């Protein structure tokens, strides 16, 4: 059984092709975008459920940096970060959050349901773990078409207890499908801590053991660790060696969704992670210490990213509501 040990050492040696400033920018874009979304939610412009990704940015940014065009992505409802990392337009994402016609789904999907065939992003799924068989199917398609693509299929620490995850693991291992199951272990599924939900909760990466799937735990708060693991194991899947489980040890700062008062954990717990493990601060320090960029350069990135988010927010407020006739479109192709 190929269960590798945790690679949690800090400040991993960066691979030669790693573009630190790009990683920094991509994480910051997600952070600022989500803050803006939280703000718009507070103004009543975004409705319903809205699950922010703040705290987990390193996971999707590090892994996406290790992919190549033609790979596919699929995740749950906590999906804004994945869409931005996949290269989707922040304006279209934000306008979907406000339910406007300029959104990726013309306002009919909302926060949890967006897609971009062009960027290989296949949603955005509101049913916990439903994306796992779907992602397995995307991987099946890569193999069937022999297009060398790999599917990155993200799921939560809560989702790992759904039966369909294991149905998927079995088929993926049986047929050696090119899929990376990324368990984003942010320690909570809504208000239930991973210890209260999962047997052997410290070893979710071993959930594929019975199927012979390699499982690796990664420090998901360190984008360089994530990217390194991504490069190694995505290549493994691309070479036809079958699926991989990557457990990303991460943390969400905000509530499960906007209306979560978060009584199941202490403020100290949150502030400690923020102070000691924030993925963006950690990388900023690394950049400054290594003199890869100056403080001013980082400030400039922040300014640029803020402007993108402000523009996205302006667009999302200016875009009109969908017309009433949209109620009856897109139910069936050709109707």
């Amino acid at each position, binding site marked *: 059984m190929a269960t590798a040990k945790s690679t949690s050492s800090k400040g991993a040696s960066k691979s030669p092709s790693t573009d630190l400033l790009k990683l920094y920018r991509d994480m910051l874009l997600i952070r600022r975008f989500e803050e803006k979304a939280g703000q718009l939610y507070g103004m*009543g412009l975004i409705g319903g459920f809205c699950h922010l990704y703040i705290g987990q940015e390193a996971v999707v940014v590090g892994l996406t940096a290790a992919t190549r065009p033609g790979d596919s992505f699929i995740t749950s409802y906590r999906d804004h970060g994945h869409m931005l990392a996949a290269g989707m337009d922040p304006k279209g994402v934000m306008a979907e959050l406000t339910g406007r016609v300029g959104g990726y789904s013309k306002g009919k999907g909302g926060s949890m349901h967006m897609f971009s065939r062009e960027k290989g992003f296949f949603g955005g799924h509101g049913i916990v773990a439903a994306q796992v068989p779907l992602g397995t199917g995307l991987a099946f398609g890569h193999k069937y078409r022999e297009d060398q693509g790999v599917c990155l299929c993200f799921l939560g620490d809560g989702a790992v207890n759904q039966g369909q995850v294991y149905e998927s693991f079995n088929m993926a291992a049986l047929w050696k499908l090119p899929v990376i199951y990324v368990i984003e272990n942010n320690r909570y599924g809504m208000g239930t801590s991973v210890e209260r939900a999962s047997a052997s909760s410290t070893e979710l990466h071993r959930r594929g053991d019975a199927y012979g799937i390699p499982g690796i735990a990664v420090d998901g708060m360190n984008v360089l660790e994530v990217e390194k693991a991504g490069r190694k194991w995505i290549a493994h899947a691309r070479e036809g060696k079958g699926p991989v489980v990557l457990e990303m040890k991460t943390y969400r700062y905000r509530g499960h969704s906007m*209306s979560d008062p978060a009584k199941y954990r202490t403020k100290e717990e949150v502030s400690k992670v923020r102070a000691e493990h924030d993925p963006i601060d950690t990388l900023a320090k690394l950049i400054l210490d290594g003199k890869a960029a100056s403080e001013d350069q980082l400030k400039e990135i922040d300014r640029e990213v803020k402007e993108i988010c402000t523009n996205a927010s302006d667009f999302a407020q200016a875009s009109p*509501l969908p017309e009433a006739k949209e109620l*009856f479109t897109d139910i069936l*192709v050709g109707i």
Partner: protein
Amino acid sequence: MPIQILMPALSPTMTEGKLARWLKAEGDKIKSGDVLAEIETDKATMEMEAADDGILGRILVQGGSEGVKVNTPIGLILAEGEDKSALEAVAAPVAAKAPAEPVPVPVPVPAVVSPAPAAPQPQQKAYTGPTKRQTVREALRDAMAEEMRCDPNVFLMGEEVGQYQGAYKVSQGLLDEFGPKRVIDTPITEMGFAGLGVGAAFGGLRPIVEFMTFNFSMQAIDQIVNSASKTLYMSGGQQTCPIVFRGPNGAASRVAAQHSQCYASWYAHCPGMKVVAPWSGMDAKGLLKSAIRDPNPVIFLENEMMYGQSFDVPEDADFTLPIGLARIERAGGDVTITAFSRMVGVALEAAEALAKEGIEAEVINLLSLRPLDSAAIIESVKKTNRLVTVEEGWPFAGIGAEIAALVMDQAFDWLDAPVNRVTGEDVPMPYAANLEKLALPDVPKIVAAAKAVCYRGQK
């Protein structure tokens, strides 16, 4: 310009709340993400975080204030280096603009909920080309084989479809012709392979997913309804899902409750997919080919008892039956009988029995349940003024109930009698031979129902 801090909405339903207390004082430096204040909603006390960096310049609404409306400015933030005097310059609150409402246009009425009054519509065209005598089983196999020859993206997956040649031998010979890449034996893992199929369809393939029987599709119904049928809509028309879910549906023989059930009304209930149910060999072949070519999810309901029955089946590889049209199997002017799948044959037998008693029944083979060929039903009812619906499924919220509502809506004035439904009895299917027979529609039940709507008493 100082930045306004607005009273936030902290739940999907909040319109106002209590600003319980400020955690920062005027003059404090704040960083985006800092907790500024505590807000009490109807449900909980929540923290409000700063979205901008700067200095808390002024508190506009004091801690402890009740009933603060969402979007009221409650404080002002000065940007780095901004002077306090800027505070005075703040004009009236700029609350969020209401979104531009599009100009109201009349909402088109969707076809399924309340179809437009029936205009004469094409029926399924009669086929006049060459045919061969085949079982329904062979017709289904040929439909799949022909489509797989034309389109390399079509593949078949399911339990025992390959080496075993199909649990009911429907996929006989396909593994030999197309190999294991395209005829895939799955583990017993319905939710898994249904979801995998949907994902493959998202990615551009055209899966045919066989359920050994539709009873087992209950394991997978979340993937069928939530993933396959809703994604086109939720993606604003971007993400298609061309997939066929097929297998035997309805009562088999002596297999009791868990293996004998009709899922027609379950799936036909859902927008975003098509539901078809062939009766004859021609139906099976023509509809399955259309289903495989369709860009939408299609539920294809077969019937085990029909697999071995032989019919004249079109040989032409281009022959298909359009989905959404019914066929009049037998014309008659006294009463309309709708049926689908195996019940078409039973209804035809009943029509012969009725004819001996001087009642000419018009038997409509529905073929497609969603979309339902409402025009064909309405047109027939306007001629016969009487309607009997037949189905194996349960009566409650069944296909017959839907058709009764349709006829009320569009042909009420033409009805000379209330619609009569012949359905499976409202019980789980019993095992005992006599009870099983009692639970299902049969010729005498249909004859009695037809006579009742014709106000002809039983002899």
